[in-house]
């Protein structure tokens, strides 16, 4: 509607801009001729700088429930500008043909190793020993969990002669700039692998870092959204001091709010002494409190503690969460878990316990926001162990095996982690106004057989399976899939139902259909 009217009103290049919405004011207030010219000039100037990128014709799984068949996603300067069927593409738009493919929001990897963005050395050097994985899995987990502060072995011990090849080990944030920005390696092979796995945002020690390839600017989106606390029944004094911390902070906040309400300019601000800044930020809703806990008692304690203090806890681990899912749901908790966690219950206890593949499903059912992370945050043995960063989607798929819905499993690696990192207004779903971080896959993203064909970060194509050496040789992309026509047929049928598709039930239906298709394909191959 808008577009046709506009086209009538304004000619030529101004119309180009209209698709971008920048000239909307001109449309709302019928312009004078001079204004028109000005607009035109401005439009030209703007277009010189603006960078458009469009993913054309893919089935967009928006991540908020809806599936839009065969639509175009247009981004302007890295932000999604328009999603729809007849999107007008401004001149100079770079396009990516995604016909017959699926478009998902870029995945968000929690607990990723800092090698992903720092990537000083290649994966082989960083590879931990095999025993670590097999016999000391828990230790490995612990190491990975706390491993961010460890300085990695630079792997140059054997090359004594390379006196130039030494890194400054100190990676300290200085003078307000983020250390993640300063140490960002835009050519890290780890990053390429992460992108190949569909990951476009990685958590690096609490910071949400966008995996921009070939660029160094503006990669840290938020690095202050997580405050870590510990809660363990093994350490009662720790719990006591944590309670005390929050009590003091609560009291201070009460005083502060009263002072603020009085608005007396002469009165001094209440003293901040003894107030824990982390707790303060949590209670002021500026940050989330993260606990690393697995045991039922701890989870219960955290749930109660969070409710007493009025914040929503993020629970990393949450192995026995399924036994107290209702409590966690009431506390509005976030859970970060690995679906393939295997750990027996403690036999000395009568109660339920241990790991459960249904964990994610049960927690989700009770209103817990479930995020799935890879059990190991690094990339090891080039992924053959199957539980590292390259297998984030597989991990989420195991949650589906445990009963989680497809859409909730997708949320568990997109929107929920984005919320946990405090960047949900920018990433996690395909919506107008959000960053254009997309992945294009050749099938259901949770299916083990699917490959990420393209990854787009901030409106730039940063990964093309055929161009990179990692997976290009496996099932190479056909020149132009014959299936494309069929898909177009489907698209026409469903065009009218777009709105209805927005509902979650719709998307699940679609998912199951696609799943069936996949199954058939499998049979064919057999």
């Amino acid at each position: 509607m808008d577009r046709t009217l506009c086209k009538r009103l304004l000619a030529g290049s101004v119309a180009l801009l209209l698709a971008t919405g920048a000239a909307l004011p001109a449309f709302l207030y019928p312009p004078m001729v001079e204004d028109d010219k000005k607009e035109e000039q401005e439009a030209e100037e703007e277009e010189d700088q603006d960078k458009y990128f469009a993913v054309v014709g893919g089935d967009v799984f928006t991540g908020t429930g809806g599936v839009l068949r065969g639509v175009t996603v247009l981004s302007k300067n890295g932000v999604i500008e328009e999603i729809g069927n007849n999107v007008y593409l401004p001149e100079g738009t770079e396009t990516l043909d995604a016909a017959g493919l699926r478009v998902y929001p870029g995945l968000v990897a929690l607990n990723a190793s800092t090698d992903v963005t720092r990537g000083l050395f290649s994966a082989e050097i960083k590879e931990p020993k095999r025993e670590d994985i097999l016999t000391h899995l828990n230790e490995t987990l612990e190491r990975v969990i706390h491993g961010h502060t460890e300085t990695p072995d630079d792997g140059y011990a054997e090359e004594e002669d390379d006196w130039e090849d030494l890194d400054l080990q100190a990676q300290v944030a200085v003078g307000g700039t983020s250390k993640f920005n300063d140490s960002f390696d835009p050519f890290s092979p780890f990053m390429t692998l992460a992108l190949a796995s569909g990951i476009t945002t990685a958590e690096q020690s609490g910071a949400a870092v966008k995996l921009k390839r070939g660029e160094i600017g503006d990669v840290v989106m938020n690095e202050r959204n997580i405050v870590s606390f510990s809660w363990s029944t093994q350490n009662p004094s720790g719990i006591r001091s944590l309670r005390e911390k929050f009590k003091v902070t609560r009291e201070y906040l009460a005083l502060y709010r009263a002072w603020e309400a009085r608005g007396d300019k002469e009165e001094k601000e209440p003293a901040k002494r003894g107030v824990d800044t982390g707790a303060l930020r949590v209670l002021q809703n500026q940050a989330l409190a993260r606990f690393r806990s697995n045991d039922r008692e701890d989870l219960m304690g955290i749930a109660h503690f969070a409710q007493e203090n009025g914040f929503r806890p993020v629970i990393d681990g949450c192995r026995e969460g399924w036994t107290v899912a209702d409590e966690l749901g009431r506390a509005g908790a976030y859970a970060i878990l690995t679906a393939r966690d295997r750990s027996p219950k403690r036999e000395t206890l009568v109660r339920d316990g241990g790991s459960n593949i249904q964990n994610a499903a049960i927690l989700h059912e009770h209103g817990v926001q479930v995020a799935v992370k890879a059990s190991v945050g690094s990339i090891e043995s080039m992924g053959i162990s199957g539980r590292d960063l390259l297998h984030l989607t597989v991990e989420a798929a195991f949650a589906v095996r445990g009963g989680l819905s497809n859409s909730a499993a997708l949320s568990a690696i997109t929107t929920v982690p984005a919320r946990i990192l405090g960047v949900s207004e920018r990433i996690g779903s395909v919506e107008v106004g959000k960053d254009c971080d997309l992945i294009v896959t050749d099938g259901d993203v949770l299916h083990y057989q699917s490959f990420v064909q393209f990854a787009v970060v901030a409106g730039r194509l940063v990964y093309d399976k055929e161009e990179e050496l990692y997976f290009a040789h496996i099932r190479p992309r056909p020149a132009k899939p014959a299936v494309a026509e069929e898909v177009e047929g489907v698209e026409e049928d469903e065009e009218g139902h777009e709105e209805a598709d927005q509902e979650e039930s719709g998307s699940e239906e679609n998912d199951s259909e696609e799943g069936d298709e996949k199954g058939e394909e499998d049979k064919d191959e057999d």
Partner: protein
Amino acid sequence: MTMIPKAFGLIALLVLPLHASTSSGDLLAIRVGKAETISNGTLEHVVILVEDGKIVIIGEDLPIERGIPILDRPDWIAMPGLVSAHTRVGLERSRASSFTPQVTPLREIYPRRDEWMELLELGVTTLGVVPEGNSGVPGQAIAIRPHGDTVEEMLVKEGVYLKVNMQSSSSAKKIIRDAFAKVDKHDKAVEKEHAKWEKAKEKSKKKSSRRSKSKKDDEDKKEEEAKKDEKKPEAKAVSKTFVPPTPTPAVKTFIDLREGRLNAMMSIRKAGDYLHLLDLMKAEESVNYYLRVPLRTDIDLYEVAEELGEHEALVVLNAVITLQAHSRRERNIPAELARAGVSVALTPERDRLGSYEEWMNDVGHLVSRGLDRDTALAAVTLQAARALGLDERLGSLDAGKDANIVFWNGDPLEPASSIQAVMLEGNFVIGEVD
């Protein structure tokens, strides 16, 4: 090792008479089969006329005046002496981090060491020696000739470039930012002092004008001035020219850098570092810098080939074929960069004597894998000399340049070829001549 004393003996015998002849201003004409001039490509039937340590003229089939001694070697191929732009061969290495921009490795140089003679035998006539330390700002490099009895005799040029280790980390960036911040601070201090001085000057002018008005005797004046001088010899007497406060040596180095008197050699370790460096140096556009990138397996420098080309960078690399990360795919980074328009200088694969022995072979290997031959020869001569700021004097066979010439019995890049003689500034330091 046993051959070194022998070599010494040889040189003592051979060089001295030649030395005497050339230093007296006598001409020497050298006729060789071919010459890799670097600046003018390959010439054949070449005559090189040398006088006072310089090349007087070089050309194909030049007539030689009667009376000029001729060295006739039709089977020799001449090329400029090799220049290593970045080395610490034979010196101690440390991994220490430091910020000592004023330091040079001059004190570490000991003349008459075996290594120098061996380097000469390998055709290396100029070395850019860097100060030790591979993080922070370890200091300034010096250019030396591996020949001479004293350090002074060996020294070609001091302060050829400031070595800066730049990595993508907050701390490495901070070191560089802080250094320039100190220069800013110093500049402000200078401005302040200058303003003070101007004021003082005006005051003293007023005073003197008053004095002249009061018509005092010249004698009185003289007496007064004498008294003044006695009382405050320096403190309050306003100097006629403004003497700015002297900066600390470290700050001075960075002032030189900013004002173009000194170049920087930025040592980076991966492609990403270059983007960070560009970002960092945006604020310091006047600084001229070259790049040093030690090539190691898996290095991803090809990722920034275009950017390097756009900035017309001069990059000092070691002559080695690398592998692409996570693969066995070979990358000829010197060739890739050269194709992108980057000036490439090549050093031996590793910074030790054994690697210098293989230097030309390694370069030949790069050529066989796609590096342009002329580019390769320039990379070990003229481009390296450029990195040392000595391209006016060294690096090619041109009239007016130092007569640093290496004579081969075949193509320098062929493993079978060997060096027949080495001329250093007009003197044959290696090889049996006559």
